[in-house]
C-alpha cells in the first residue's frame, strides 16, 4: 500500500516535469543561499555561545591595539592552573615597497612550541612540517586560500614591508600550508623571529591561555584582573567566547540584517512551493475526482499532495546545500580564489552535515507550503468535476 502510494507521488511529480523542475530549482537556489548566510551567522554565534570557557584571552585593559609587556607573559604563563599558552602579535604590512591594498597581509606571530595545541584545526598539521616549523626561525605556515591568492609555493621567500612606526621589513620563508577551515587565509610566523627581526622583544598583542578547568579559568580571570588592575599597563582578561562576542557586537547590525534575510528566504521558499502546489491542485481536479471515485479519502489525497511537496523540497534542499558545500570546500582549499563576492559569504567552511539538515529543512518548507493547498483538495466535488467534463 505504502509502496503504491509513493509510486503515485512519483508519477504525479513526473506528470508535469517542467513545473517540478522549476519548483525544485527555485528551492535549490534559495536553500543554497540560505545555507551560506546561516553558516556565517551560526558560526559567529556558536563561537560566542559555545566558546571554550577554559580558554582565556589576556589583552591590554584600555587601548587597542593592545600592547602587553613581554615580562607579563612569563609571569602569567607559570601561574597554577595554566595548562598551555601562546602569544599573539599581528604584524601588518605590504608585499611591495609601494603599498597596494590587494597586496596587504597580516602575519600572526605565535609561540612556536604550542602552535598545534593552541589553535583549533591545526592538530592535523603533519609532523614533518611541524618539526621544520620548530627548527626554522624564519618559517611561516600559510593557509591554502592565501597561498592561492598570492600565487605562492612552498619554499618561497617573501618580505613584508611593515605598516608601522618605526618602519621595519621582515623576510619569511614558506615551509608548508596549514589545513583549510577557519585558518584558510592565515599566515603564522614565530614570535621569537618577529621579535628579533623587528627589534621589538618588548611586547605582544595578546596572550591566550588554556586553563585546566572552567572553575579555575574563572578564578584566574578574577585574580589576574585584580593583580594587574593598578599596573601600567593594566590588563583585561576574558574568556575566548566573551572576546569573540565583543568583536561580534561591532557587527550586530550586519548580523541582524542577515537574520532578517534568512527569515525572508524561508518565507520565499514557502511561497514558491505553495504557489506551485496550488497551481498543481487546481489543474488536477479531474485526477482528484477520479481518486475519490476509486475510494481515496480526502486525507489520503491531501497526504499525497503534501508528500509531493516534501519530496521536492527535501531533494532540492540537499542538492542546493551540496553545491554550496562543494563551492565552500573549493574556496577554502584555495581552488576558487577569494574575491569580493565570496570573501564575506564563504569565510567559514560549510560542513557536509548541512546537506542532511537542508534536506530536512526543504521537506519542512514543503510541508508548510503545501498544507493549505492540500486542504483545498477536500473541496473537490466529484459531481461538479464530472458535470463540467460532460
Amino acid at each position, binding site marked *: 500500500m505504502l509502496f503504491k502510494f509513493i509510486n503515485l507521488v512519483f508519477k504525479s511529480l513526473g506528470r508535469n516535469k517542467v513545473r517540478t523542475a522549476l*519548483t525544485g530549482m*527555485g528551492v535549490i537556489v534559495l536553500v543554497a543561499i540560505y545555507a551560506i548566510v546561516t553558516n556565517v551567522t551560526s558560526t559567529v554565534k556558536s563561537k560566542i555561545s559555545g566558546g571554550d570557557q577554559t580558554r582565556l584571552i589576556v589583552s591590554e585593559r584600555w587601548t587597542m591595539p593592545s600592547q602587553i609587556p613581554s615580562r607579563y607573559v612569563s609571569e602569567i604563563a607559570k601561574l597554577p592552573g595554566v595548562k598551555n599558552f601562546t602569544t599573539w602579535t599581528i604584524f601588518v604590512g605590504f608585499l611591495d615597497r609601494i603599498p597596494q591594498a590587494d597586496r596587504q597581509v597580516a602575519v600572526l606571530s605565535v609561540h612556536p612550541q604550542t602552535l598545534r595545541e593552541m589553535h583549533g584545526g591545526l592538530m592535523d598539521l603533519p609532523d614533518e612540517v611541524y618539526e621544520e616549523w620548530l627548527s626554522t626561525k624564519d618559517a611561516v605556515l600559510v593557509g591554502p586560500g592565501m597561498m592561492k591568492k598570492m600565487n605562492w609555493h612552498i619554499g618561497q621567500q617573501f618580505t613584508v614591508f611593515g605598516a608601522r612606526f618605526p618602519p621595519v621589513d621582515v623576510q619569511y620563508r614558506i615551509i608548508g600550508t596549514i589545513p583549510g577551515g577557519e585558518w584558510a587565509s592565515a599566515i603564522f610566523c614565530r614570535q621569537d623571529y618577529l621579535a628579533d627581526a623587528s627589534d621589538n622583544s618588548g611586547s605582544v598583542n595578546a596572550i591566550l591561555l588554556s586553563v585546566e578547568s572552567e572553575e579555575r579559568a574563572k578564578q584566574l580571570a578574577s585574580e589576574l584582573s585584580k593583580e594587574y588592575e593598578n599596573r601600567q599597563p593594566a590588563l583585561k582578561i*576574558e574568556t575566548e567566547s566573551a572576546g569573540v562576542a565583543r568583536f561580534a557586537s561591532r557587527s550586530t547590525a550586519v548580523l541582524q540584517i542577515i537574520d532578517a534575510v534568512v527569515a525572508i528566504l524561508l518565507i*520565499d521558499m514557502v511561497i514558491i512551493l505553495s504557489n506551485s502546489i496550488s*497551481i498543481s491542485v487546481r489543474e488536477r481536479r479531474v485526477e482528484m475526482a477520479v481518486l475519490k471515485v476509486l475510494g481515496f479519502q480526502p486525507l489520503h489525497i491531501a497526504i499525497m499532495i503534501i508528500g509531493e511537496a516534501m519530496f521536492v523540497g527535501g531533494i532540492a534542499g540537499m542538492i542546493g546545500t551540496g553545491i554550496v558545500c562543494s563551492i565552500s570546500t573549493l574556496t577554502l582549499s584555495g581552488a576558487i580564489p577569494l574575491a569580493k563576492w565570496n570573501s564575506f559569504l564563504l569565510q567559514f567552511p560549510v560542513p557536509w552535515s548541512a546537506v542532511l539538515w537542508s534536506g530536512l529543512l526543504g521537506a519542512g518548507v514543503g510541508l508548510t507550503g503545501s498544507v493549505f493547498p492540500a486542504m483545498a483538495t477536500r473541496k473537490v466535488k466529484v459531481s461538479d468535476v464530472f458535470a463540467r467534463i460532460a
Partner: protein
Amino acid sequence: MIPVKYNARNLVVRWKTTLMTASGFTLVVAALVVMLAFVEGVQQVCTTSGEPQNVIVLAKGNNDEVFSQLDTRSGREIERTKGIARRGDGQMLASREIFLVMHRHLESANVFKFLQVRGVEPVAFDVHTQVKITGGRNFRPNQSEIIIGSGVQREHELAIGDSMALGRKQWKVVGIFTANGTAFESEVWCDQSELASQFRREGVFSSMVVRTDSPAQAAEVVERLKDSRSLVCNPMTETEYYSKQAAQTEMITAAAWVIAWFMGIGAIFGVMNTMFAAIGQRRKDIAVLRILGFKPYEILISFLLEAILISIVGGFLGIMIGMVVNGFSRSTAVGSREVEFAFKVTQTTITFAAGFSISMGILGGLLPALSVVRVQPLEALK
C-alpha cells in the same frame, strides 16, 4: 497590439496566484533595499566625514589612525610645509591628534564596548569645522574633562555631568557635540597631552590634520608632503582618508548583491511556474487571439508584459516595505572604528531595486512567453 487591459484583468481574475508570485518579488526587493540602505548609510557617514581642504598625515604605510604613530620631529616637519592656512591671530591650522580605540566597561549591560577617544589641542576646533558643541561646554586642559559626540551619548548612555573611567582616571563629561552626522559624532574628545600621559603616548601622536584655504591647496600640500625628502609619511586629503575607510563596505555590498541575485533567481523560477500555468490554462485564448489576426510576437509581448506587471507590483511593494528602515540609526564597525549611521534609502537604491525587480520579471516571463509562439491555434481549440 493586444490591450494591456487584457493582461491586467487576467491577473485580477487569478488574484491568488498573482498575489503569491508578487509577494515573492516583494520580499526579495525589500531585502535588497534594506541591504543597500545599510551600505549607503555607512558609506555616507564615511564620505561626508572629511573636509576637502583638510589634509591628514599618517605614518608611512598606515591607512588607519589607530595604527599610525608620528613623532614630534615629523610634526615639526609637517608644519613647515608651504600652503597650511593660519588663523586670524597667526596660529597655524595644524592639529596634532592622538586617536585611541578603548574598551569601556558598560556597567548596565556588564559588557565591554569599544569607544573611540581623540586627544586634541584647541586648534582642532578650527581645523574640524564640522564639530559644534551643542550642549554644555568645551573641556579644559589637564582637568580630566571630556566632550562626547551625540552618537557616543546614545550608544554609551552618557550625559553631561556623568563620569567614566579611562585608564586610571575618572573623566567628567562636560559637553556634547555634533558634527553634521559624520564619524566624529562617534568619538570622545579630550586634551591631547593629558591623554598622552595617561596612555604612554608622550612624544608621539597618531595623525596630524592640517587645514588649507581650498581643496586645490590641499592637493598641493599632499603632493609637497609626498615629495618631501626630509619626511617619510602618508599624506592624503581628509575626504580621501574617510572614503578609503568606506571602501571596506565593498565586500558587504558585493555580498548583498550575491544574496539578492540568488533570491531573485528563486523568484524567477516562481514567476516562470506561474506564467507556464497561465499559458497552459489559456491555450484556447491564445488560439482565438491568433485567429483574430494577432501575430505570435504580439501575443509573446502580451504575456511578457503580464510577468512584468507582476514584478512591478511586487517590486513597488518591496520598495515601500524596504523604505521603512530609512533613517533608522545603528552603529557598526568600519575598519578599526565604530560609527553611528542611519539607513539611507536613496534614489539610486530605489532605481536599482526597481530595475532589479523588472529584470526578474523579464527573465521569469521570457521563457514561458516564448512557448506561446509554439501554440497551434486549431489544435488548441479542439
